[in-house]
């Protein structure tokens, strides 16, 4: 009983960590631009696919070098996406921007599909296939890598957003571009950095989880949507809300899969977010602003 519970908790947190990383990316971009970047899940795919390509498939690089190179490449893709697709359309309406980011998602997926193919990719866990026994559950060492990295990333982000001037400016650019400009920070740079940061977070998530879940050119769609749900759950525009939302989502999925029905694991995320939005239209930790007339 306890062992099951511990097992589901561990797999829920691992699963939730990836939603959290994707969700934080959503929140960071939303803060800077009021844009929901539906291409966010593709960077998870890119991180995993590129590492696998560089390390396993071609053996070009050792794993400790393949990982940063893959993350850097995904980050560049994120920046390029911003410069080529988002920046020229800044003033477009909600539906137009949604479609542009979905277009970006389809494009990234298509490029990988054509260049790397449709098969599954994987590379070995960082510390081998060892397991750790906790409360009768056996937890893959890679899960510890995932959770440990998430904790470090969260701490670094907290420091960045709370303690650095640039980070503070980034949090509020969407609400008041003027405030950012007053402290000498250009909106354009904030946007660029937020797209880069979000892409890097996603790619990192892909690198960490690929040894556990495998990866394929089309895994980004569902991950993107789940990350979006995590962000909404936590309250749009708050990276740490997204972190919490992601972990909650992962846990709920794991427990539903474990105790109820594994077939409806994917549906539960959306059922949860629908229910939450009905009760609290601003998410668990957020509020919807009222129109002032």
């Amino acid at each position: 009983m306890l062992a099951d519970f511990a097992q589901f908790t561990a797999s829920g947190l691992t699963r939730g960590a990836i939603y959290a990383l994707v969700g934080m990316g959503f929140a960071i971009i939303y803060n800077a631009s009021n844009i929901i970047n539906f291409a966010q899940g593709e960077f998870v795919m890119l991180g995993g696919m590129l590492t696998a390509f560089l390390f396993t498939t071609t053996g070009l690089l050792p794993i400790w070098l393949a990982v940063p190179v893959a993350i850097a490449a995904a980050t560049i893709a994120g920046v390029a996406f911003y410069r080529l697709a988002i920046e020229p359309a800044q003033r477009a309406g909600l539906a137009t921007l949604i479609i542009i980011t979905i277009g970006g998602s389809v494009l990234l997926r298509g490029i990988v599909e054509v260049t790397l193919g449709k098969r599954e990719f994987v590379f070995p866990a960082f510390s081998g296939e060892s397991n750790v026994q906790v409360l009768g559950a056996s937890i893959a060492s890679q899960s510890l890598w995932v959770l440990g990295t998430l904790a470090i990333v969260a701490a670094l982000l907290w420091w960045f957003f709370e303690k650095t001037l640039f980070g503070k400016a980034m949090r509020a650019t969407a609400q008041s571009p003027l405030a950012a400009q007053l402290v000498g920070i250009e909106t354009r740079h904030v946007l660029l950095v937020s797209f880069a940061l979000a892409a890097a977070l996603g790619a990192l998530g892909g690198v960490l989880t690929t040894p556990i879940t495998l990866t394929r050119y089309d895994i980004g769609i569902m991950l993107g949507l789940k990350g979006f749900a995590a962000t909404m759950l936590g309250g749009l525009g708050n990276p740490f809300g997204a972190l919490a939302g992601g972990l909650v989502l992962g846990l709920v999925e794991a427990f539903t899969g474990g105790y109820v029905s594994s077939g409806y694991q994917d549906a539960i995320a959306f059922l949860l977010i629908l229910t939450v939005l009905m009760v609290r239209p601003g998410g668990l930790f957020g509020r919807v602003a009222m129109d002032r007339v």
Partner: protein
Amino acid sequence: MATGTTLSAAISLGAPLGRLAILSAILIVLPLSFPNPFFFDVAVKVGLSAIVCVGLNLLSGYAGQISLGHAGFFALGAYGTALLSIKLGVHGLIAAPVIATVVGLLAHVIARPILKLKGHYLAMATLGLGIIISIVLNREIWLTGGPDGLSVPAMRLGEFKLRAIEFWYWIVAAFLIVAVWLAENLVNSPAGRSLRALHSSEIAAATAGVDVPRAKALVFAFSAVLASIAGAFFVFAERFITPADAGFLRSVEFLTMIVFGGLGSTYGALVGAAILTALPQLVAAFAEYKHVAIGIVLIATMIFMPRGIVPTLADLFGRRVGR
């Protein structure tokens, strides 16, 4: 591009009934250029997308309420009609309207809580709704056949088996004209004006006396009914349906079609549906690069024609005439 200009001329100058006549004429003449049944099949798919888009455009284009879940209603219409006739032996001609009514009522009920949400929250909620529907269709294999899809026998009318795609072309074309007529009527009515008003300010619309939740719920339900009917026709004409037709990407395609054609323009919805449905079918040679091409087309159109094809062209032409 010559036809494009003529079309936009007709659109910018014609009275609503004039436009409807032109649309009818195009739909009647078009088959003359079809070399084989494959073209009829593509045209039927275009027509069905167009019917969904005409409804979705009322909701998202005119009333400004984004939906990323309308493929769900299409699928409910398709599976509902198919299952009613397969499992219970109800004739398709009865099953389709019954299911459309049920879908409309269902949509009306969920519309009130869902359409309280705005912007991205609404996008999330409709997206979730569509995905839940598609997951159920995937999982309940005993009923739906699961990911492999569901085959449906041809509709029978007395002695006749209605399998010819040419026949369904005419049915779909006729219904499309009806849908456009209904939509254009609505847009130019008090109810339609209220919808366009609440698009930009719900507070001002309510102040003017518009029952905003009611108006939104009705247009949501109507768009769901159109999607459901299109789904039913899809099952009649194609005799096969899979859960992919209900998926998130399908919903995105519908939204893309109306934005591509021009939000808030019924004929834009038609043009968007026609181009984005027909192109991938006709350039099958590109199959491998399909996603790359679609991605580029989406991004480029949204950047260079953010208002969509039809309003942009109509403006260009209108200005030339004005001079």
